[in-house]
């Protein structure tokens, strides 16, 4: 990479385009798989009319949303109303700049020099990720407030309360990983799991459980989907949104699900590593390329999201708050103590 124009302009641009395209496609098809899996769990068939066998359903949905009219309520705060979906979707997409999909490689020898398939490796990657992804809730609150609708406002307020309560145990469970990995960079965390020889899921299964549960709560999904509880709030914060505005909220929600799944994979399930990366007896698993390992794990967590939605009833709001403050917070604190002691006694990363 002698030419700085190529190294600093063309290559990142190509990466950005590829990541965004793949992400939007994944988010769109996630909605298709959600409908399909939910249908299968209710012994139905699900969407199967759009040729072939329903596989073009997301494309049809996107076309429909493109041509739909954007209705703005008469008494809405116009500027904020239009900004809400934008504020929601930008952090959801920006976060993907630091998520490592695979290690540096030459793509099966296609390239002359090894190239990193992720956009950047920030040395404070996990802080960047937590900070940026939390901005997204402004989109929910502002959109809910600007709609001038009581259901939207209630949904936005609930979302804010939920995010504030669940950010704390989520942060503590991330700190447990940081203690074990001794780094804030997501790439270094995966490499530390390779050096340690185990995924951090094994020593930190409590942290992994709490992180994923809080992630489900942060993305407003079942059983924590209070902000858009249909039975009480119509559609919550996006009651008044239509057309592409609604599509942005929709896309952002699914992109956030992919973020949480990807970060759970990176922090606790070894990112692109195969199971037990140092055991030579399992070396035949290296046939599967690292990116596929990553995609498989992310896919598993996305399936869990939909599985939860097909299984669990919604929490009541006080139960939600009680779970966050009285269960997850103390458990994650105790877990942090235990893991800190373990790192101190057994010896963490050198």
């Amino acid at each position, binding site marked *: 990479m002698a030419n700085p124009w190529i190294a600093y302009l063309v290559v990142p641009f190509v990466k950005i385009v590829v990541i965004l395209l793949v992400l939007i496609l994944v988010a769109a098809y996630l909605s298709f798989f959600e409908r399909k899996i939910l249908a299968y769990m209710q012994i139905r*068939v699900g969407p199967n009319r759009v040729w072939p066998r329903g596989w073009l359903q997301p494309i049809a949905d996107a076309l429909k949303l493109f041509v739909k009219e954007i209705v703005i309520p008469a008494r809405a705060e116009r500027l904020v109303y239009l900004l809400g979906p934008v504020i929601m979707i930008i952090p959801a997409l920006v976060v993907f700049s630091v998520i490592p999909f695979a290690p540096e490689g030459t793509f099966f020898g296609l390239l002359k020099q090894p190239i990193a398939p992720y956009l950047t490796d920030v040395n404070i990657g996990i802080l960047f990720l937590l900070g940026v992804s939390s901005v997204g809730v402004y989109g929910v609150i502002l959109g809910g407030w600007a709609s001038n609708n009581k259901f939207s406002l209630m949904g936005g307020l609930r979302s804010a309360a939920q995010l504030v309560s669940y950010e704390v145990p989520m942060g503590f469970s991330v700190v447990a990983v940081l203690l074990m990995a001794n780094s804030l960079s997501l790439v270094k965390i995966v490499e530390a799991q390779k050096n340690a020889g185990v995924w951090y899921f094994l020593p930190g299964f409590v942290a992994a459980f709490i992180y994923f549960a809080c992630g489900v709560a942060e993305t407003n999904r079942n059983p924590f989907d209070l902000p858009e509880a249909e039975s009480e709030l119509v559609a919550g914060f996006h009651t008044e949104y239509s057309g592409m505005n609604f599509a942005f909220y929709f896309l952002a929600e699914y992109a956030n699900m992919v973020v949480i799944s990807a970060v759970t994979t990176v922090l606790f399930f070894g990112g692109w590593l195969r199971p037990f990366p140092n055991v030579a007896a399992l070396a035949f698993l290296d046939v599967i390329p690292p990116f596929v390992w990553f995609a498989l794990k992310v896919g598993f967590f996305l399936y869990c999201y939909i599985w939860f939605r097909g299984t669990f009833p919604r929490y009541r709001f006080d139960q939600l708050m009680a779970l966050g403050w009285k269960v997850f917070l103390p458990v994650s604190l105790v877990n942090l103590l235990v893991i800190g002691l373990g790192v101190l006694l057994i010896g963490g990363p050198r």
Partner: protein
Amino acid sequence: MSLGSYLASLLPIDLAQGLGVTGRFFFMRKATIQYPDVKPVPKPRFRGMFGFNEERCIVCHNCAKACPIAIIHIRDHFEEIEVDGKKKKKKVLDRFDIDVKRCMFCGLCEEACPTEPVAIWLTTMSYEMAAYERNERLYYDKERLQNWDGVQPYPGVVSPEAGQLPNDPTGGKAAKPEERR
């Protein structure tokens, strides 16, 4: 609550049980019938569109009286006919109309029919009666009742085991999915 069950309640066992149920249903055979492509075949006891036989009808009006919403309209008159040299009065059917668009297919007219075999019956296994014009298409006079497209002769008395649900292979006796072990 004993200490053991209290400790067990701390673990998310119930959540795992719930996930197990949905996970099992995921692999079950789907109950959906792709209707316009695959047509469900009703069982013999299925209450479909009417069949009517004028020859068996004795014009007793029992079906019209039994109908809870009075949609069977019967008109008759007496005719004198000679049987074995004697003059006899006989009821002759002028009209036998059923306003099918209001029918709820309860089958009380079939139960009320005194002839053997019955002159009006519901077990024709036909359920495709959608029409664009309800007053013309869904008001059946006695000719159309006997000759509509797909009308079938009375199947005789059907045993209760024959079932009523379309595509129910066990005749309504199968365990519901949640009862299946």
